[in-house]
């Protein structure tokens, strides 16, 4: 029942044109090691489903996204994501926009095998007017008009949690599960990266049973990637704000971005982590 894989094996199972769901929220607990590796793969034309942050930014910068399905893209402490902005302003990606609450219902619908779930959120707004996948339905009991949010199904999903066992059971630390269980259930194949792999017998030494968010029944592969959500929030539920600022500044010109990419992103995950350590020592 061991499901341990390498980053390269996981990313190698993603094909061009697929729909990829990415867990976390904004600049919080994103599976960045997997995203970084995907940026260096030959995959292209992805449809990405995400409460977007630096994951979407990096994939935009690498030219991997054809269509983004999202309610927002933000780095939280830096409100606007520079690569997402550039991609939109260049007209190089399509943006299927949702309200963040209706987006959750799309995830719930997909995770439960329902075609849609109804919500009043979005009525009257341009989210309904400009998103061709959104249609309205009448409440069969009262007649009220509601939006039928389509199931946000995915071919593959990536989530990052703090602890997992080799079977793929995964536990989160910190205060917020985000929606990672739904991503794991909504995708045909789901992959977990974790800060630290532990024995199954030790999972509950790490947190209460309620923190076991993702079950092996939904997981195809698991990989240990210490600091793998960097620079978004990770093992201690904190973000590397200084490095995030460095990332945003680097996006300011093609030259500085090329330098950033060469220094941090062109190698594998071990090279990235080593480059970040060296950068931090310079600060």
């Amino acid at each position, binding site marked *: 029942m061991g499901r341990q894989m390498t980053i390269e094996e996981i990313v190698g199972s993603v094909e061009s044109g697929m729909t990829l769901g990415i867990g976390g*929220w904004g600049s919080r607990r994103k599976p960045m090691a997997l995203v970084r590796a995907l940026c260096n793969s030959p995959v292209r034309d992805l449809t990405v489903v995400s*409460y*977007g942050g630096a994951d979407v930014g990096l994939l935009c910068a690498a030219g991997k996204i054809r269509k983004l399905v*999202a*309610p*927002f*893209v*933000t780095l939280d402490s830096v*409100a*606007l994501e520079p690569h*997402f*902005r550039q991609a*939109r*302003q*260049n*007209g190089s990606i399509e*943006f299927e*926009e*949702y*309200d*963040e*609450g*209706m987006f*959750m219902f799309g995830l719930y619908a997909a995770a439960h095998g329902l075609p849609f779930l109804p*919500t*009043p*959120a*979005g*009525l*009257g*707004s*341009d*989210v*309904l*007017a*400009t998103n061709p996948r959104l249609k309205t339905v009448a409440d069969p009991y009262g007649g009220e008009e509601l939006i039928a949010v389509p199931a946000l199904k995915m071919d593959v999903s990536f989530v990052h949690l703090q602890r997992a066992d080799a079977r793929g059971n995964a536990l989160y630390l910190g*205060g*917020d*599960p*985000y*929606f990672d269980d739904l991503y794991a259930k909504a995708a045909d194949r789901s992959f977990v990266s974790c800060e630290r792999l532990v024995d199954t017998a030790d999972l509950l030494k790490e947190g209460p049973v309620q923190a076991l968010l993702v079950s092996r029944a939904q997981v195809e592969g698991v990989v240990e990637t210490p600091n793998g959500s960097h620079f978004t929030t990770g093992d201690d539920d904190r973000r590397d704000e200084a490095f995030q600022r460095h990332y945003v500044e680097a996006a300011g010109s093609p030259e500085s971005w090329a330098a950033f990419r060469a220094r941090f992103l062109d190698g594998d995950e071990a090279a990235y982590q080593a480059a970040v350590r060296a950068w931090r020592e310079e600060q």
Partner: protein
Amino acid sequence: MGEVLTATRAEVCAAACADMFRGDGEIVAAAVAGMTPALGARLARATFEPGLLTTDGGPYLTAEPVPLGAPAGDVEGWLPFREHLWLVLNGRRHVWLGPSQMDRFGNCNISHIGPSDRPKSQLLGSRGAPGNTRLNPTSFWVPRHSTRVFVDKVDYVSGVGNDRGAFQLRGVVTNLAVLDFRAPDGSLRLRSVHPGVTVDDVVAATGFALTVPDEVPETRLPTGEELRLMREVLDPKGIREREVRA
């Protein structure tokens, strides 16, 4: 009284934000649109709305109103994002939005400026604004009142206004004034101008015909107790002064 007269613009704005919560009782103050509404929510809870539920800015409902940027301290509840999104539909929530554009009916845009297929400026995306405005009492915080924000027509309707089915738009606090939606047709009306600001200043900074009553009062000053709470308890580091200048 000398203490009262030295209230800064940021403190006047925070007290005006606090006033938007009057009568709300035991609901969640989702003051996420900036430091000033967050301070206002905690100030309201510490004074005239003790039933309000406030957060640490993260998933914790705090047992007491905590200082801006401080850890939660004792916790009385858990409100991760999925519970926030449930609460939007449940309705026991008063939310603040920070619009990039707003028209006279309160339709607001936080998504992008320019055409939707290729915007001139991509902003956040609509986030929760469509559901918030449709289902919850909503207030707005605008730290720079200008004709770029208050426009005749928004480029994209993220949050719905009173002509598109808004639930209840409570009001708008800006660095210059307080506005509400009590013109006869539900559009924006000037309620008060902050000390040192004239009605003409506000009219000039607003890109549509604003309803201006014959008498426009001055926005109230924080009381001595409110100033003490802000300065000594809720924001001793003076974070409020970074967001708005006189």
